[in-house]
């Protein structure tokens, strides 16, 4: 199924979002030849996603011209310079997609990072057909093209399989099939693996590799994880925030010259991976919590998500909980953290942790629980309750009636320690992914818990945030805090874990979400 590959060209291109003073991108000069494969790197906030959206024609056509070559667009943003696909303005790409004699070939196809938000319909086949219907492809051609796209990405389920039962990796594969069915000449992938576990990353990378091989389409990938893509691309292009292209060339060459600088800005460069901090292990490790033959179930279910778990948590020691999606790792973390009652079996919080409250954390009052066990959720936004970063940090200590002076001291220390000082008045929901992660950890620490439970703390983080988190956790461990971390991240396990608990896949196959 070869497509006609599209050439991309940018000259002095820039974009300013509606209502912003600074340009998200400016002075971008870039030539991508038909069939070329490019990895686009840069620190977060460098406008990589904006460039992809512009290529996909999603920023809309210009509506009027302001001074000196600046155009205003429908959505209120402004552009400067030129951005073309095969010599025609990218802003018009969507308008131009058309069916010629029943043969649709779209200029571009865009894949985004959130698998949950990219599934449109309830059945897999319908989801792939969706784009073809919108492009008015005749019915008798739709289904053959759906089947072709599904087999091209290596999708194993049938057309009728419900999309609700797909794992994150399968879901991204399906979204890729939906994009491919339109036979785009330029494939744009915007951090497609950021929200996938290692198996999912593998699955999707193989699909993309097969697809570009079979179609010959031009490929532009934005990613933080260089290792997954470097073998697949011909070129690496580095963007600087507001500064255009600062490096462009063969992967080995660019990574050699700019690897250290990129790594310092959070890009995962293979030769410059963050080092694990050295840690002194204390001689005494008081038992905090233990389980014996513990079964846990998701809320509202009587079916164990994980069963027969034996676990020992000690102050100053870290336990990593690993295992495939759907093995009940997050559920176990919620039970250990006292948020959900156990289904069967024993769970005992020992005196150094319970401090007079009895052995069952799920019976403790919320206020008392927060002072003893801190929980960091996989999705930081789930745990934000205040309107500013500063108030967010004060919520826990305030609930425990910590005095004003002590409270301010704690909050200031955390703001400083987690590089959030300049954001003290910002709304937590407006922070970047890395900042939100740091804030969510800080909120759990503000109440000085003896045990910290973290669910995928390093998930989707850039290397700089990763290194900071690991250093912070190592410090807490040295100070005697116990840590339980649910994770897929092997680097985190080897950097911190004293013990690893591997959960087996549950016998009954559950609809696997992003664990």
């Amino acid at each position: 199924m070869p497509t006609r590959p599209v050439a991309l060209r940018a000259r002095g291109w820039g974009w300013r979002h509606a209502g912003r003073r600074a340009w998200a991108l400016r002075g971008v000069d870039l030539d991508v030849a038909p069939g070329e494969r490019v990895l686009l790197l840069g620190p977060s906030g460098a406008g990589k996603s904006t460039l992809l959206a512009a290529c996909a024609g999603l920023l809309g056509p210009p509506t009027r011209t302001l001074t000196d070559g600046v155009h205003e667009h429908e959505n209120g943003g402004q552009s400067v310079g030129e951005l073309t696909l095969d010599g025609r303005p990218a802003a018009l790409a969507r308008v131009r997609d058309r069916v010629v004699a029943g043969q649709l070939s779209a200029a571009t196809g865009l894949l985004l990072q959130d698998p949950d938000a990219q599934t449109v319909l309830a059945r897999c086949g319908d989801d792939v057909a969706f784009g073809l219907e919108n492009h008015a492809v005749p019915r008798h051609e739709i289904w053959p093209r759906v089947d072709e796209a599904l087999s091209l990405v290596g999708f194993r389920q049938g057309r009728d399989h419900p999309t609700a039962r797909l794992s994150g990796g399968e879901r991204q594969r399906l979204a890729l099939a939906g994009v491919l069915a339109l036979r785009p000449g330029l494939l744009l992938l915007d951090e497609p693996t950021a929200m996938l576990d290692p198996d999912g990353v593998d699955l999707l990378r193989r699909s993309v590799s097969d697809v570009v091989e079979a179609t010959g389409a031009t490929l532009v990938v934005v990613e933080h994880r260089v290792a997954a893509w470097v073998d697949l691309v011909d070129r690496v292009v580095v963007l600087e925030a507001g500064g255009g292209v600062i490096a462009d060339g063969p992967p080995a060459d660019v990574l050699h010259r700019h690897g250290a600088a990129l790594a310092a800005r959070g890009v995962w460069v293979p030769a410059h991976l963050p080092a694990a901090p050295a840690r002194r292990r204390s001689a005494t490790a008081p038992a905090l919590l233990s389980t014996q033959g513990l079964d846990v179930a998701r809320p509202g279910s009587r079916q164990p998500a994980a069963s027969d778990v034996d676990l020992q948590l000690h102050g100053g020691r870290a336990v990593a909980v690993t295992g495939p999606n759907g093995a009940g790792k997050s559920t176990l973390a919620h039970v250990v953290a006292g948020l959900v009652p156990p289904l069967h079996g024993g769970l005992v919080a020992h005196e150094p942790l319970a401090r007079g409250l009895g052995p069952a954390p799920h019976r403790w009052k919320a206020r008392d629980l927060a002072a003893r066990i801190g929980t960091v959720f996989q999705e930081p936004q789930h745990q934000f309750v205040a309107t500013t970063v500063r108030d967010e940090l004060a919520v826990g200590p305030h609930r425990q009636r910590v005095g004003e002076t002590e409270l301010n001291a704690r909050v200031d220390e955390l703001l400083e320690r987690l590089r959030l000082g300049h954001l003290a008045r910002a709304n937590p929901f407006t922070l970047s992914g890395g900042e939100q992660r740091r804030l969510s950890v800080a909120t759990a620490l503000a109440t000085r818990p003896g045990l910290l439970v973290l669910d995928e703390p390093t998930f989707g983080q850039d290397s700089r945030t990763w290194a900071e988190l690991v250093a912070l956790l190592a410090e807490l461990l040295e100070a005697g805090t116990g840590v339980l971390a649910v994770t897929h991240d092997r680097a985190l396990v080897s950097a911190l874990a004293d013990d690893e608990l591997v959960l087996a896949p549950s016998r009954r196959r559950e609809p696997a979400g992003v664990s």
Partner: protein
Amino acid sequence: MSIAVADPRADSGLDLHAPIARTNPVAKLAASTVIALGLLISVDVVTAGVALALEALALPWCGVRPRALLRRGVIVVLGAVPAGVATAVFGEDSGSVLAALGPVSITSGSLLAGAAITLRIFAIGLPGVVLLSTTDPTDLADALAQVARLPARFTLAALASLRLFGLMAAEWRSLSLARRARGIGDSGPLGALRTALGQVFALLVLAIRRATVLATTMESRGFGSRRERTWARESRLHWRDGLLVAGALALTVLAVAAGVRAGTWNPVLS
């Protein structure tokens, strides 16, 4: 992550090849609407009772087994029974007094009115439960757009957002757990109310964010352009569909005629 909208094909209590289950969703919708309109005009035991009896006769062709019907129709029962009891107890008194306690009395008139209310809710609710149980949301959207000619933008956007509701249920659970983890939620009714409001707000923020990405996805696959679209799944009317609507019409006429004949017909608008 479960989805709030039930997948009809995954339910063993359903037979989606049954003659009525198989009809076009728009025909099922029209049939339920005809029955509902006919029964809304009058509150009387005979009309509602005959309608319900005739519906029960049609049930074997609907593809919903009694147990599945009960499970899915529990909300109708929860509404119908208290409404009837309340009417019997507090409704306008007439006829002989059957029981009395202070100012509250049950008379033969109010008991009959209560029975009429309960029967009517059942008779209107039953076709609705069958419609919802045997209709896949995707098929409904296809039918609304292709048969009823509703705008595709509207039906497809509604269908896509339906999927997000399932995610919102899971998200709400996570938000509740996270609030307990933060030490919030055990400070009396006022505190609980404040926590709940904050949680609703957080849910909305998350939902809007996700919906924005979904909208981008749909747009990047050509949704929302002005040009005509095609349909991968054809939805059209069949002679069965006409039969179903005619049947619903006949059922309604018979029920009303029985009510008029028995002298209990009591149009609310006269």
